[in-house]
């Protein structure tokens, strides 16, 4: 099939590489190659600001009224939760936890809520909870409505789906400012932001659930004489109840994390604000004590909602009996509440906990950490410097600048350069000789990238490389999308920042993918590893992002390296999960067949299992990238320099246009990478001839 001469695409790649080298040579003379000229930047952000000003001038009153209107249910919920003594709330939540999952979650809930009381953050927690309680039903209703509409109307689905993509890829901070400008300060911003952020999963799950209702259930309901309404409410909806409840679970988690993030604009007196306050004051012990409250709340909310979803799927015996027990539980709950309420009238302690243990706890945690840092000071420094000097800096500014006596211990001489290029060139030629043209091209590109550094690459060269790569993966449509998307980033003047975002995220993703996939493969073969990893993954996926930052800030202070670690720890989860899932769910005949052919365990893993699970592993990569970008946005809090920082500054300075354009730029990058990785995954699974579950 392959001709002796080079393939066409390899020739094109060689052409592109030559162009890149030409650009690099003339870099000094033509400075527009590295720096897009300032005069040509389209003042997109100014336009947006201008339009927004006009819009607010005209319609601002409308939104303020909505805001006023929406503040009522929030105030009511807050008033209600505050007026209940804490013993009553704990009692109620514990009972719900028991009904949803069982005794273990009930005990966990009891301890966790009691912790909130003990450290003296009950009121703030209830403020957060009241926002969640109000926003979730709204998000669920909106999401369900849109989902049903999208299921029944193809046209509606075509409109809804891209909007969902945008809502879920635009950085969370970028949401907040327009809402802030429209609705004014206060809790309503948090409410609206969390509704906007949390309805998409509900839409997706509703559509998915309805689609998965088996054809024969629909047909049998019709043949039973169901009209359209009966068909939907009595047959289809109950059959996909689990998926819909999973949507509720995801929506609730999204709402919760957004409420926490929304704390950044203040004015809500909720638990997120407290954590942020202490992070900013660098009081790590205190921020960890309070951050734990958020993590515990998230875990409880998640387990309770997902518990109901899972339970809905299990068959239950004897419905009549169940009705009775339900009434019993209700009686018990009401009775308990009344008794506890009356008790709290007599013992003020049960209504309002007077002590605050957080300061005491924080001091001890600080001491502990200080001692730890003190005794491992040199090790911590070593890790940090090693990563910075040998991985991060070369990627960012290339070997030509990163190698210096201060970092590597020697100056980059001509002999080193010759050696460097010679090594890469020989390797690439070896690949070419073996007809591995992809590796040949990759090695050459890597050689240039690592020498020059991502941020020092001429933007036209990167534009061509990315676009042609997209074309190879997904044809001209994807290539055009990539080209115009990236061009947008260039012309609005966000390219340098975009590359910094890509650099941090890129390193994190590569690391996550290698380590995470290996861990996943290992876990698929070793039950102990799997059992150890599962709760860690669960917890990391549940707790809101900026709590994850706290321990890293404690150890490594602020900066790129800390951001990188935080991203890695968060984004590694999908890589592990998908790899394990992919390997565990392979058709067993293939593995048995290879065993019978006499393959060793290692051969089976690397020659059979991993290649077959590749489509799913690629989906894991996709999710890792998305998680990485989400965490990167939050990492702006601890001082990175990429797009995420501009989004953040836009928010804090009230410069909506700038923050929004940067936000869109991040969304563009996210969507391009998403499409590319998904296309690779789909192509692989098509080639392998099976569908991804």
């Amino acid at each position: 099939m392959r001709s002796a001469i080079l393939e066409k695409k390899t020739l094109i790649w060689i052409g592109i590489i030559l162009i890149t080298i030409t650009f690099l040579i003339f870099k000094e003379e033509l400075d527009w190659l590295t720096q897009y000229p300032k005069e040509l930047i389209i003042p997109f952000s100014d336009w947006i600001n201008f339009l927004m000003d006009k819009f607010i001038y005209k319609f601002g009153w409308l939104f303020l009224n909505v805001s006023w209107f929406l503040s009522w249910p929030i105030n009511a919920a807050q008033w209600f939760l505050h007026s209940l003594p804490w013993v009553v709330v704990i009692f109620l939540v514990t009972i719900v936890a028991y009904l949803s999952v069982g005794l273990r979650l009930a005990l966990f809930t009891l301890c966790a809520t009691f912790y909130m009381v003990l450290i003296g953050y009950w009121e703030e927690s209830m403020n957060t909870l009241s926002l969640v309680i109000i926003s979730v039903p709204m998000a669920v209703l909106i999401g369900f409505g849109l989902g049903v509409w999208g299921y029944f109307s193809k046209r509606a689905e075509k409109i809804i789906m891209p909007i969902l993509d945008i809502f879920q890829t635009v950085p969370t901070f970028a949401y907040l400012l327009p809402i802030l400008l429209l609705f004014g300060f206060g809790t309503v911003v948090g409410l609206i932001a969390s509704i906007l952020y949390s309805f998409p999963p509900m839409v997706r799950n509703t559509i998915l659930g309805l689609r998965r209702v088996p054809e024969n259930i629909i047909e049998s309901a019709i043949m039973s004489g169901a009209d359209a309404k009966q068909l939907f409410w009595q047959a289809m909806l109950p059959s996909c109840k689990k998926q819909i409840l999973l949507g509720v679970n995801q929506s609730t988690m999204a709402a919760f994390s957004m409420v926490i993030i929304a704390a950044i604009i203040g004015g809500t007196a909720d638990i997120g604000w407290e954590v942020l306050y202490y992070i900013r004051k660098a009081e790590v012990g205190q921020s960890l004590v309070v951050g734990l409250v958020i993590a515990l709340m998230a875990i409880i909310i998640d387990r309770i909602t997902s518990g109901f979803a899972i339970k809905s799927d299990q068959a239950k015996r004897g419905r009549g009996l169940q009705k009775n027990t339900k009434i019993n539980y209700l009686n018990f709950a009401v009775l308990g509440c009344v008794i506890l309420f009356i008790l709290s009238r007599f013992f003020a302690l049960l209504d309002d906990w007077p002590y605050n243990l957080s300061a005491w706890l924080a001091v001890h945690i600080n001491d502990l950490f200080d001692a730890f840092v003190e005794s491992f000071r040199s090790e911590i420094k070593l890790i940090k410097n090693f990563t910075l000097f040998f991985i991060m800096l070369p990627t960012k500014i290339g070997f030509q600048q990163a190698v210096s006596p201060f970092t590597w211990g020697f100056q980059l001489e001509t002999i080193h350069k010759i050696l460097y290029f010679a090594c890469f060139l020989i390797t690439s030629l070896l690949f070419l000789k073996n007809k591995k043209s992809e590796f040949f091209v990759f090695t050459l590109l890597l050689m240039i990238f690592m020498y020059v550094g991502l941020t020092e690459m001429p933007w036209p060269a990167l534009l061509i490389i990315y676009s042609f790569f997209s074309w190879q993966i997904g044809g001209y449509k994807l290539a055009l999308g990539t080209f115009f998307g990236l061009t947008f980033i260039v012309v609005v003047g966000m390219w340098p920042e975009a590359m910094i975002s890509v650099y941090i995220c890129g390193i994190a993703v590569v690391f996550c993918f290698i380590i995470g996939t290996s861990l996943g493969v290992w876990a698929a073969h070793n039950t102990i590893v799997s059992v150890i990893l599962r709760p860690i993954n669960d917890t990391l996926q549940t707790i809101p992002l900026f709590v994850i930052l706290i321990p890293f800030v404690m150890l490594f202070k602020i900066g790129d390296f800390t951001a990188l670690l935080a991203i890695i720890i968060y984004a590694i989860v999908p890589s592990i999960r998908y790899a394990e899932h992919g390997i565990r769910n392979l058709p067993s005949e293939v593995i048995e067949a290879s065993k019978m052919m006499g393959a060793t365990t290692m051969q089976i893993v690397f020659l059979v299992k991993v290649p077959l699970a590749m489509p799913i592993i690629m989906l894991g990569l996709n999710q890792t990238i998305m998680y990485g970008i989400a965490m990167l946005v939050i990492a702006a809090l601890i001082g990175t320099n990429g797009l995420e920082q501009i989004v953040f500054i836009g928010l804090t300075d009230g410069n909506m246009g700038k923050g929004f354009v940067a936000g869109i730029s991040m969304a563009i990058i996210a969507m391009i990478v998403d499409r590319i990785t998904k296309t690779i995954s789909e192509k692989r699974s098509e080639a392998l001839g099976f569908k991804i579950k």
Partner: protein
Amino acid sequence: MKSDQQISKKVKLSCRNVWKVYGDNPCQFFSKGSHLDGETSVLSKDISDNGHIVANANVSFDVHIGEIFVIMGLSGSGKSTIVRCLSRLVKPTAGEIFLDDENLLEKSDKELIDIRRHKMGMVFQNFGLLPHLNVIENIAFPLKLQGLKEKERIKKAERVIELVGLTGRENNFITELSGGQQQRVGIARSLAVEPDVWFLDEPFSALDPLIRKQMQDEFLRIQSIQKKSVVFITHDFQEALKIADRMAIMRDGQIVQIGEPVDLILSPKDHFVREFTKDVPWESVLQATDIIDESKKISETAEQVPFDMPVAKMLHLLSKKSLGVAVIDSGGKKIGMATAQSFVAALATAET
């Protein structure tokens, strides 16, 4: 069961020149009733050449009151589509479907719902039971849709539960039942509304062979009590033989041959039908009436056998009586003689 004497010849359900074409614009081929003239296969090929998929081509047959009409075909032959056209789960592209002389294609959605609530019942291959309801709630589901009160629903459902032999399982959830039991629920549900027409779409194909045989007997037992007009879909020729009063064989969306099982076996219309019939054990299909030797005079003293006795059961007699046996009809009248020789002769004609 297979006697036509018990079945009155009155037509219950009838389809005339039914076409079902999938594609972007299937109606274009039927603008002036053009499907009625010209060869079916020619038009069919014309349609598929135009990028459309022909699921049913010019299908016509009648189902008589109280008979079991089996449609047999391999996968992709269009048998599932035709039963969905009959039950109007799918709208035929062209043709007419009459239930009690009323054209179902002219009915509004509302009228169709009403017809399904009272006149039709259907059993599905993968059961189509609702996982959130227990056994009795599933069976009473059609009654609930009609708006019946709970007490009445339960009363009616109890009756069919007894009929299908699921008494004691009322409060089980579907996932707790075996496949055979689940299909019993499916059968009970389809009978709960006391329909006239009973559709069964490969009802036993998802079951293990042993259970399948059991369920076939069960089905015949229920039908002998209920006497519905049945349309039964299957890909299993043996199953078709066992239960059919009359059967149709389908291929590529068209009906190849219609007739009683024995007609199909004795005179298969083409190579395709013969493929199915050739492995059939003749002695179990042929009945006394099929091996009558017309040339032989009726003997008064010969032993008598009923006309519908399977030949398999006569072999013992035939081997002993060289003169043969007399075949009598249901009125006791002698209609002819059957001998060992005539049996071999019948086999010989069938074999060629």
